[in-house]
């Protein structure tokens, strides 16, 4: 076997996984979250099915609280690529006033993300959902299979997963059950950025540093896109040169102080960074093992 450099190897494996989904599943969909990992997934999908078109639709679970720049990027980029985008929102919960401050992050995520995702998948009749999650992101994800089985309620049983050997994937399910498929399982955050650099892949401008208005609380920088983000007495937003390291809902995603305004500068910052990628994601830290619990319930 020829030794291949790691990015080519990761790319080839991800392409293999995507083709396997399309060959064996009835109705796959790509869960598009607009972030950098989703941008990489789209490029891999283009490569996997070339010279044919991407043979599945994209599903975006829009909580209603995503950054404006994310939605603009989503509509422009998926339009340019000629992809079929489905947007699903849990309107009922939003009408009831769901937001992380009124409902708490656990209940808010449960309604706007988990419930919305399960409803969106059910409404589309999708039996396989391709997502951009990576095993290096969070410790319960380190154990998840590339083809991860979900029961009829969309739930994950971490103690009863199908063994996954070589690159042979078991895609068989009964009606009502589904698969989550993670082509980027073996990629690290650094791999993703190197690939974006090498392939010149478009990403949301929020990843690049520029002066933005933020609420500054100690080391935390809170975006002020949503009017319900509570302010301390006398608190006024300040212009801070910062960027987003990962993208989620604006009330729950902190920015980091940074002047990295190009992909190489972001990579340089990353290799000297001392905090993990999801450290600024409030929802990962609301209880011990919180990602594992959310995933069992059906969260991505």
């Amino acid at each position, binding site marked *: 076997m020829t030794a*291949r450099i790691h990015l080519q190897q990761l*790319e080839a494996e991800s392409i293999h996984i995507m083709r396997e989904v399309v060959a064996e599943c009835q109705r796959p969909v790509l869960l598009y979250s607009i972030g950098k990992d989703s941008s990489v997934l789209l490029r891999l999908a283009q490569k996997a099915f*070339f010279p044919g078109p991407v043979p599945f639709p994209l599903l975006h679970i829009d909580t209603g609280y995503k950054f404006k720049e994310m939605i603009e990027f989503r509509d422009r980029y998926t339009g340019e690529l000629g992809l079929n985008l489905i947007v699903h929102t849990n309107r009922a919960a939003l009408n009831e006033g769901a937001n992380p401050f009124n409902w708490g992050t656990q209940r808010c995520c449960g309604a706007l993300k988990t419930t919305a995702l399960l409803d969106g998948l059910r409404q589309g009749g999708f039996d396989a959902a391709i997502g951009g999650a990576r095993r290096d992101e969070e410790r319960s994800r380190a154990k998840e299979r590339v083809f991860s089985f979900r029961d009829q309620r969309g739930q994950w049983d971490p103690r009863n997963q199908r063994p996954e050997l070589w690159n*042979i994937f078991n895609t068989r399910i009964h009606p009502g059950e589904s698969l989550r498929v993670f082509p980027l399982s073996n990629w690290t955050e650094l791999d993703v950025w190197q690939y974006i650099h090498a392939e010149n892949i478009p990403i949301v401008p929020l990843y690049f540093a520029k002066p933005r208005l933020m609420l500054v609380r100690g080391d935390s920088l809170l975006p002020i896109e949503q009017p319900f983000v509570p302010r301390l007495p006398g608190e006024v937003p300040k212009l801070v040169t910062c960027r987003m390291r990962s993208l989620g809902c604006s009330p729950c995603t902190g920015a980091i102080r940074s002047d990295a305004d190009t992909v190489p500068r972001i990579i340089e910052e990353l*290799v000297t960074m001392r*905090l993990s990628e999801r450290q600024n994601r409030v929802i990962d830290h609301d209880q011990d093992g919180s990602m594992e619990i959310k995933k069992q319930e059906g969260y991505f």
Partner: protein
Amino acid sequence: MASLLAPSESFSAFLELEKGKDLLRFTTAGSVDDGKSTLIGRLLYDSRSIYDDQLESATKASVGRNVGAIDFSLLTDGLRAEREQGITIDVAYRYFATPRRKFIIADTPGHEQYTRNMVTGASTAELAIVLVDARKGVLPQSRRHSYIAGLLGIERVVIAVNKMDLVGYNENVFRAIENDFRAILARFPEIEPYFVPVSALAGDNIVSRSSHMPWFTGPSLLEHLETVPVGGRVQTSAFRFPVQRVVRPSHEFRGYAGTIASGSVRPGDPVTILPSGRETTIESIVTFDGNQEYASAGQSVTLTLSQEIDLSRGDFIVSSHHLPLKSHGVKSMLVWLNEKPAEIGKRYRIKHASRQDWAILREIDYRLNINTLEQDDVHTLEMNAIGQITLETARLLCFDRYTENRITGSFILIDPATNATVAAGMITGAAETGTLAPLAGISWQVKDGALVLTSEQGFSTKPGASGEPLAMEDPEALEALRHMLSRLRVAPFAGTTDADFEI
């Protein structure tokens, strides 16, 4: 530790260096208390692959458990049950990098009841680290771990003699364990061992060489991992391409998408399509990044052929100079992965490369006692058991022996009722195909554009036509017949239903 990271003053040089890095996948096997999680935590920590907030949460959770300072195992045990019980249950994948190389670790539990997890972790690994506790020496499980590495085709094994700090860094302890272990490895000539004395907890000989053991002059564990050659030594270089998908975006284009399992390919190469046996040549190698003049193992590409040939998912495109084996019956080593034991005579779904088919478990030749390597005569395989079996597939199986090709020589079995992955197989060769009996009495011919089937009982698809039975000794003709029978939904096995022909 800063030396493990790139100096920022030469950042563009760093990016160039990064592009050229290769990837080593390794697995770790060790029993409870051998210090495996600590070893991995140490590798991640010393290569600065652990971020401060992750370290803080491991330190926070350590409070209340009887461990000083950082509990490295808390960095790796991902599930809550594992953290609570202080054990590793499932395979976990870890990632770290040094300036020389990227690494993927399949971290697996070593206890016998987790043999299946160890096998899973080993299936994608090119190297295995086997941990031995310096105070306990070589145990029965050392033989088990070595056997699994050999069985899964891992040729490079590092034997890390851990907890050297607890035996006073004594060279004699290390040498005695090395001698005992070499005696075990004498049974596994394909394995190339490297012995290294370490203390994962104290960090001796993990990243840098230990001052506590001046008598040991070899490279540290990490130095060895960074420099050991990647890739197998005895794997075939013959071209093998399992077709994943037929790509037909328009009438002008017909290509075959897949990942090259082994060997390499260039336009103009003579190839054979299997199982049909038709020969043609490669016309082009198509990718999103442009047509290629050359592609090799591990690359995902789309091939076009110079002739239009009926070809579907699951077929192989292979080098005409070096054909794989073909048979309906295979001998295989099988690892049973499921709580429901193996049943002789039961039909399972088999997934081999990109093809799904039906297979009958014909025989269990023996079960291997994995601690003594003795062969037991049994009628079933329980979870975690390893044995040799004979399998018969509904359609002709094209394969290489696992020792020659880890992709075309491996398969999984799926229980059709539960859809659970119940077994992992490593093909050792073709089996006697005396089991073709169900079809022996049927023959066919094309008459006036119609296929005429004739059985010994005189049955014919065309009313009134008198079937003239043909001799079916030619295996190619027999395969063609099977292919047509399956399209006509004529059962290859008694009791077959429509669903059996799903692909």
